């Protein structure tokens, strides 16, 4: 997995609460058996004016001029700024895959849905929780200043605004460690294979019907 240490990135505001993973990547694109190629269909129904289907030439489709992602000022954004409960609904990892494929590396919101939050870490993306008032201020700042960027420092657990003011964020120590080092979760767990086998020996006695 890729590492995540620091990021200086342009901010894309998605000013809605409860953005669900169906909106992030609609179901018709989940017929793919790959992990890549979802970026052009990120937020498909909000981003384009026509109906999206797999295999289209997305560059020829009519864009929704009102959707933030289509505004020139947000082109090349790497940080999504969002409202409450971002990523709710379906557990589809295609949602973080689509964000990642588009170029997003970090997200900031007052809260994330649990499954989506976990899925981000599996894809070297950093979801940052900041309080609602701070997120509100960031939305205003992004709106007021085209080209608004934030600097994210994972080792220091800080988000620094252009003014130089830094905001601290909290993160699970283990997840931080994995992101910083780009660790393969499965290899880490397989390193505990003896402990897993020892556990299974106990369970086999307690609940033999699960093992026969």
């Amino acid at each position, binding site marked *: 997995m890729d590492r995540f240490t620091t990021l200086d990135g342009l901010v894309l505001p998605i000013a809605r609460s409860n953005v669900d993973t169906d909106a992030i990547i609609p179901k018709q694109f989940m*017929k793919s058996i790959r992990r890549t190629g979802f970026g052009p269909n990120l937020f498909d129904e909000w981003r384009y004016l026509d109906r999206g289907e797999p295999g289209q030439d997305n560059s020829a489709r009519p864009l929704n001029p009102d959707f933030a992602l289509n505004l020139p000022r947000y082109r090349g954004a790497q940080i999504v700024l969002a409202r409450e409960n971002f990523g709710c609904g379906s*557990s589809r990892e295609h949602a973080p895959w689509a964000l990642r494929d588009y170029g997003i590396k970090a997200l900031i919101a007052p809260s994330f849905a649990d499954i989506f939050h976990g899925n981000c870490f599996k894809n070297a993306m950093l979801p940052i929780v900041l309080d609602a008032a701070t997120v509100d201020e960031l939305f205003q700042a992004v709106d007021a200043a085209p080209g608004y960027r934030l600097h994210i420092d994972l080792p220091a657990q800080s988000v620094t605004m252009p003014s130089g003011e830094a905001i601290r964020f909290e993160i699970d*120590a283990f997840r931080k460690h994995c992101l910083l080092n780009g660790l393969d979760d499965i290899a880490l767990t397989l390193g505990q294979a003896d402990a897993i086998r020892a*556990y299974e020996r106990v369970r086999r006695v307690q609940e033999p019907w699960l093992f026969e």
Partner: protein
Amino acid sequence: MMSTDAALTQPPRTLFDKIWQRHVVQETAGGASLLYVDRQLVYEVTSPQAFEGLRLAGRTPWRRETVLATADHNVPTTTRSEGIADPLSRLQVEQLEINCKEFGITEFGLRDRRQGIIHVIGPEQGATLPGMTIVAGDSHTSTHGAFAALAFGVGTSEVEHVLATQCLSLRKMKPMLVQVDGALRPGVGAKDLILAIIAKLGTAGATGYAIEFAGTAIRSLSIEARMTVCNMAIEAGARVGLIGVDDKTIDYLQGRPFAPAGKHWAPAVAYWRTLASDPEAHFERVVTLDASAVNPMVSWGTSPEMVVGIDAVVPDPALEPDPVKRAGMRSALHYMGLAPGTPIRSIRPDKVFIGSCTNARIEDLRAAAAVVQGRRVASTIKLALVVPGSGLVKAQAEQEGLARIFTQAGFEWREPGCSMCLGMNEDRLGPGERCASTSNRNFEGRQGPGGRTHLVSPEMAAAAAIAGHFVDVSEARH
């Protein structure tokens, strides 16, 4: 099993704590636990990348016999004899078959009568058992909590992780109690109850929690109705919904193909009977609800929390003090093509969908058929679909004469699958089409781009199909 003495020295524990503690292989750094997984359910959409990951790393499943697979999300519900017309869907379903063969995993293929929605067939086969940890690459895995199983949805990376290691690194959720006492009124069911709970908690109200549903109203629900309740825990943000074991749980499981039998049955039952919260167990949060106050529910917006009783009107965003919520309501009403103050009863669906992992079991079909019997679908309804949850549910409904009741009324009777709940196959809403749906999500575009979903119970969907608009099911009864 814990001795009586040990039980006396233990502080009282919640059901969640009991199952969690039994599955901790070891504590990992940063406050997470390495949790053992007893069962994984796999389907075609969220697994191909996981199997590919195993292949690329040269890994094999840790315990392939704990995995059960079927195709459900992407399968046609019309005739199966000609295979799948859509080449992308076909490829995905074929890939599941290839993967299961290669890795030695049991799969119910499209021509197997046991095929169906994973959350219907797991319990139906007895592959869902009390005290288990169960995962699937689908958020509605919470359904299996109806059997006192700790069951939750995961992403594809975690599907691969569990295949390879039988474990997941997970931070413990916080236990929440949703206590529902009193009796549901006639015509009000499990779907209405869980929608009322979601309205009360909010769509993110239980994020980070594992909800245990308890109380006399929950006890009086059948096992299938309990599955409907746990199924939608995720719509309040909780990955896990749980209900303690009672006689109904055990009666349901006895004799099912994957359930313990012979010498294992009695010890299994003895253990399962311990799977309830201890009196005095501590919950981080307790929410209470009076079942007798719940009405038949209809969602009006684009989040499951946007739901009201059948007698209500579409709410007015102007009265909402929170600006972010107000904007959400306005945007939802715009999408839904509804004006504030519109009586719910006056809303006219174009299509009706009875199905999904929430409401496609035999009791759901019986309840809907009882409303439909001897009547006709209104002429204004373009399509009324019944999609059974599994091949076995379908066969039973046909044997009981339910299928004929539906088809004589003008419903289409289909093959099992997820169908119009998410519209991955050809069962979709067109732009602007309005649907009375027994599914679980009313998100924008969920049932098809531009489609407008109203979440309801099977009885309410059936009644709306007959009347051509939403009605209180008690009025539609004979």
